[in-house]
């Protein structure tokens, strides 16, 4: 399995109150982290900010030192040519192999559009997607 195809996402716990997200973003900026993509999931009282950043390991330490509640999460980045087609293709391959998609989000980059997905078995997903000829991006390509 190609380790480089596993992307590290940072997941940050944010209280769902006015100003909390702004505060987290301010800290991200103050420690000089460059965010490439992010997504916000929310329940009634808290949200999870999911971000793809440059130097995720280093950024993780910096944010943790600032007292932010943070987790590293493995995700995969699927290169997208046509949004609906690419998504169907990937979902179909994963579904047939019994891999469950927990969530996903799109990112339109400079060169490529990317679908970031979190699955319940990352390594298996990388293998079967590559075998099916679906292009996965590594960290440098995002």
């Amino acid at each position, binding site marked *: 399995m190609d380790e480089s195809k596993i992307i590290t*996402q940072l*997941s940050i*716990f*944010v*209280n769902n109150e006015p100003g909390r997200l702004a505060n987290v973003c301010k800290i991200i900026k103050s420690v000089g982290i460059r965010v490439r993509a992010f997504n916000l*999931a929310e*329940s*009634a*009282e*808290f949200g*999870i900010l*999911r971000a793809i950043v440059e130097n995720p390991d280093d950024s993780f330490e910096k944010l943790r030192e600032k*007292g932010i*509640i*943070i*987790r590293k*999460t493995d995700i995969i980045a699927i290169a997208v040519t046509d949004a609906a087609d690419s998504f169907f293709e990937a979902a179909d391959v994963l579904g047939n192999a019994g891999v469950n998609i*927990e*969530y996903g989000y799109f990112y339109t980059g400079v060169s490529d559009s990317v679908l970031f997905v*979190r699955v319940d078995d990352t390594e298996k997903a990388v293998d079967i997607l590559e075998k099916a000829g679906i292009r996965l991006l590594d960290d440098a390509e995002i």
Partner: protein
Amino acid sequence: MYWNPRIECMPVEELKKLQYRELKQLVYNLYSFNKFYHDRMVENKVHPDDITCLADIRKLPFMYKQDLRDNYPDKLFTVPKNEIVRYHVSSGTTGKPTLVGYTQNDLDYWTEALARSMTSVGIGPGDVLQVSYGYGLFTGGLGAHYGGEKVGATVLPSSTGNTQRQVELIQDLGVTAIACTPSYLIHLNDVANSMGVSIKNDTKLRKGLLGAEPWSESMRKFIHDEMGIEAYDIYGTSEQAGPMFTECTERNGIHVAGDIMLVEIVDPDSGEPVENGDKGEMVVTMLQKEAMPMIRYRIRDISYLMEDECACGRTSPRIGRISGRSDDMLIVRGINVFPSQIEYTLMRIPEVGQQYMIYVSREGALDEMTVQVEIRPEAFSDNMAQMAQLRAKIEAELKKYLNIYAKVELKAPGELPRFEGKAKRVVDTRVI
């Protein structure tokens, strides 16, 4: 109308003599036959012979809720186990409940007190009494039930819940009186209205015995104006037996049957008696209890004593509406909730941090309780379903120990207020 005119209208001096005789007898019995009371009196260097008048009760030591907990389950019982005919259990402060045992005589006195109370508000033969207090370990349901049967009313043991059916039964069976918490009565009114039923115009319900939680004159007026119900305050805790005493139709204080319960009002800090008629903490001595006597028990309810004769002719002293607690106990939907109980439950959940806040509010007619907890950093998951599971787990634990649903909100560490000195973790915004 009196249920027991000899006692209820007994001249005050005679009543005091009766109380003294009962007290003296009680103290002798406990000193002689119960280890807890004997040791407690020896520790405080007081002997039954030192009690030579009613005021000498002040020489006796106080009893606290902690004593009930420390002696759980049965070390305070003063009769053989086979003489105990019933148990009731109320929620405790640290996960440990308070157990109360009753002899047949205890149940009879409890019923007698309620029979006097119900008669004093005009509930009797011909009435249909719906008991919408919880039946079971809680004292409210069974207490009101036996009292209602004693006075010859027809009792409908509906307990709590299934409110729509309760409204139907009120109509179908011609219910005339109800015993429940004030917030449940208002909820019942809302449900009735949503069914197109006006309690005031479409039912015969005219009397309510309301208690087990704090309520106010403005609620009484609302219940009268909107529902056509004369609402009477009922008082009593499981340590005393259960709900026992009510206002009479004069509605000028709750009559406390003097032959059954002796009330002192003390300064909650010093334990010294307050000036006549001043507010303070109630201290109760149960003069007739056999299975689990109570001498100078710090009940923690704040009230005041009225010793003038009531216009109804009853000579028993009255207590004013309970205006608060001298400890931190909350009453939520009629259930006693101690913040320490919540803390105890939370601290046993590994994912939960040290800080928490408790919010109590009133949404419409019902109390809502929200508990905010800080989760430990390790407990945070990127998976929303796992976070929802954690929240559900905390809610289930609280429900298990508090017997009441509290909504849980998960917060990041550092988000909840920190306190220097005494923590104020409870925010009660109910307007009563």
